[in-house]
């Protein structure tokens, strides 16, 4: 059977992917590339990984039939409750996996970038658990808008280095993390999104694929079928979407929709909708779709959601988009905010701003009552309360 969810031997999904890295990182990437599959497939890893997912993260997360939301949109909506994971988002599925890889490789120090701080918190958490030193790079602007997560990371014992170059957001935190890794080649770089040089996009997608594996099992129980009609997830770099899509990518039935951040609007110059605004290029070590000028300078993105405020997208998504296997749409800051307030009112669940983008697309789809939809609720909204509070007063 043809499988579209994995890269070829050279690390490419079609024309996207690869490893475009300075020679200074060659040994690190090569070590990882040579070992990651062997480690993941070992019995020891599988046992520890699944034990931690079950007993530490709290998996499986519920697949919740959101009746009020379903009624509002005249269809059948299930929410995959990644917001209920320990640390508040899907990010920990990946950090558990990668920290065990780092351990197997004998690494003592972990570097990571973070946007909204969810990946930073998830990394600091597993570092505390396994007693590894943790250094988190975070854009200075994001440190202000996600202050609660900064405090959590500090409490967990992480050192936080503010990224003060460029737009001072996720892109720059990633640049600084990669530079930090060049200067400290004995450390392990724990990427949080399905981006970066091969094998990172594949590794992250594999660790997040637990989301769609569970959806299949849970849907079979609830609906007597494994495959929904539609899976919806928000996309920045694309880790939660990669996980939610993974098991359905080869399905003939399930439609896949990724929702990007349009920011203030596609045409305003303040957007992060890479699949609409981007072209093929290289960013952070892989060939994918990126937002760039005609000279190839990276355009600074904008989104109210720090986790989606990224001018690229993982190579798997670029590939699925080009093949038209998945559809990539976008919603504005305002639409996402409204969707967040709506879910809170309808279901008593405060979603993360990132996940609110996935919810907001419901207004733009033609839905039928006999359809079954799964929306990946990637994170909870605690970290976004200051933003919600600002807009709550406005209303």
């Amino acid at each position, binding site marked *: 059977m043809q499988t579209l969810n994995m890269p070829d031997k050279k690390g490419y999904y079609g024309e996207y992917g690869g490893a475009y890295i300075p020679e200074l990182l060659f040994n690190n990437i090569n070590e990882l590339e040579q070992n990651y599959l062997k480690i993941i497939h070992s019995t020891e890893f599988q046992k520890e990984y699944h034990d931690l997912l079950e007993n530490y993260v709290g998996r499986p997360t519920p697949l919740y039939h959101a009746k009020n939301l379903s009624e509002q949109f005249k269809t059948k909506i299930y929410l995959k409750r990644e917001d209920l994971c320990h640390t508040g988002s899907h990010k920990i599925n990946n950090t558990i996996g990668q920290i065990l890889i780092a351990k197997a490789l004998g690494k003592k120090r972990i570097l990571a970038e973070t946007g909204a701080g969810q990946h930073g918190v998830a990394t600091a958490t597993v570092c505390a658990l396994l007693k590894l030193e943790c250094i988190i790079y975070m854009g200075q602007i994001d440190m202000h808008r996600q202050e609660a997560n900064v405090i959590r990371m500090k409490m967990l014992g992480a050192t936080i280095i503010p990224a003060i170059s460029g737009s001072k957001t996720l892109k720059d935190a990633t640049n600084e993390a990669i*530079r930090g890794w060049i200067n400290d080649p004995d450390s392990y770089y724990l990427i949080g999104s399905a981006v970066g040089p091969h094998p990172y996009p594949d590794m992250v997608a594999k660790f997040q694929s637990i989301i769609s594996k569970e959806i299949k099992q849970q849907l079979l129980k609830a609906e007597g079928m494994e495959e929904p009609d539609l899976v919806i997830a928000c996309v920045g770099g694309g880790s939660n979407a990669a996980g939610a899509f993974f098991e359905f990518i080869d399905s003939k039935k399930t439609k896949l929709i990724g929702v990007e951040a349009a920011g203030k609007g596609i045409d305003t110059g303040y957007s992060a909708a890479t699949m609409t605004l981007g072209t093929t290029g290289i960013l952070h070590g892989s060939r994918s779709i990126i937002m760039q000028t005609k000279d*190839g300078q990276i355009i600074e993105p904008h989104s109210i959601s720090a986790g989606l405020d990224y001018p690229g997208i993982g190579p798997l998504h670029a590939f699925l988009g080009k093949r038209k296997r998945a559809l990539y749409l976008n919603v504005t800051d305002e639409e996402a905010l409204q969707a967040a307030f709506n879910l809170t009112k309808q279901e008593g669940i405060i979603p993360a701003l990132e996940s609110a983008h996935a919810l907001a697309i419901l207004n733009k789809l033609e839905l039928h009552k006999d359809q079954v939809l799964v929306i990946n609720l990637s994170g909870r909204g605690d970290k976004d309360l200051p933003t919600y509070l600002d807009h709550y007063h406005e209303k």
Partner: protein
Amino acid sequence: MKNKIDILFETKEKDILSVFFTAGYPQLNDTGRILKELQENNVDLIEFGIPYSDPLADGPVIQNASQQAINNGMNLNLLFEQLFKETSTITIPIILMGYLNSVIQFGLEEFYKKCFENSVSGVILPDLPLSEFEDEHKRFADKYNVKVIFLITPNTSITRIKQIDALSTGFIYVVSSNSITGKGHTDFEALEKFYRQLHQIPLKNKTLIGFGINTNSSFKKATQLANGAIIGTAFINALSKEQSISAFINYINTTQPILS
């Protein structure tokens, strides 16, 4: 027509001084002036940085110079135009150094063709994978007589060094230590040990040492091991402080302090 890098190595084997600076920095139209002054001060080779918004292997000094140059309006088209004006006066080899994305957006064949037309003898693209060079770049580089130069570090395996040596025709850029540009700490003992390994291979290509070369003492130590050395961040710092270029080169060559 003979490549100027080959001509250089035929006439000079030791103490080659290569200077890196970012095109369009500090002012957009400084290119010609800086090129001429470097040549007048007996610099052997010039590496010309293509400014890029997200330079992964560079420290803050080169990042800021790149950003400033982009803000000034520098791009590859303009860079080639500026070089074109200097083709009659600049006789020393010029190498363009940048990140692959800039070249891909410009167009691969067009890039190598413009290099040829504007007297660019070589290019350094630190994030260009060897396999992609062989599959996509090599035919154009060969067609337009442009040398593609690769980096190695003291941590690069011997097998890979041999592979890079076989693919290289200009020289090999030896990164002094595993760190981004402008860190300024070079472990010369480790580098010496590394060179003993290199001599055993032995390499068919000449080598220049770069990253962390910023004083007369580090230049001397580097050139005792290699055919020459590359100065980047220290020169950009001098430019940003508006120090005279001749005083800077003199300082690197003779330890003469820079009077500002």
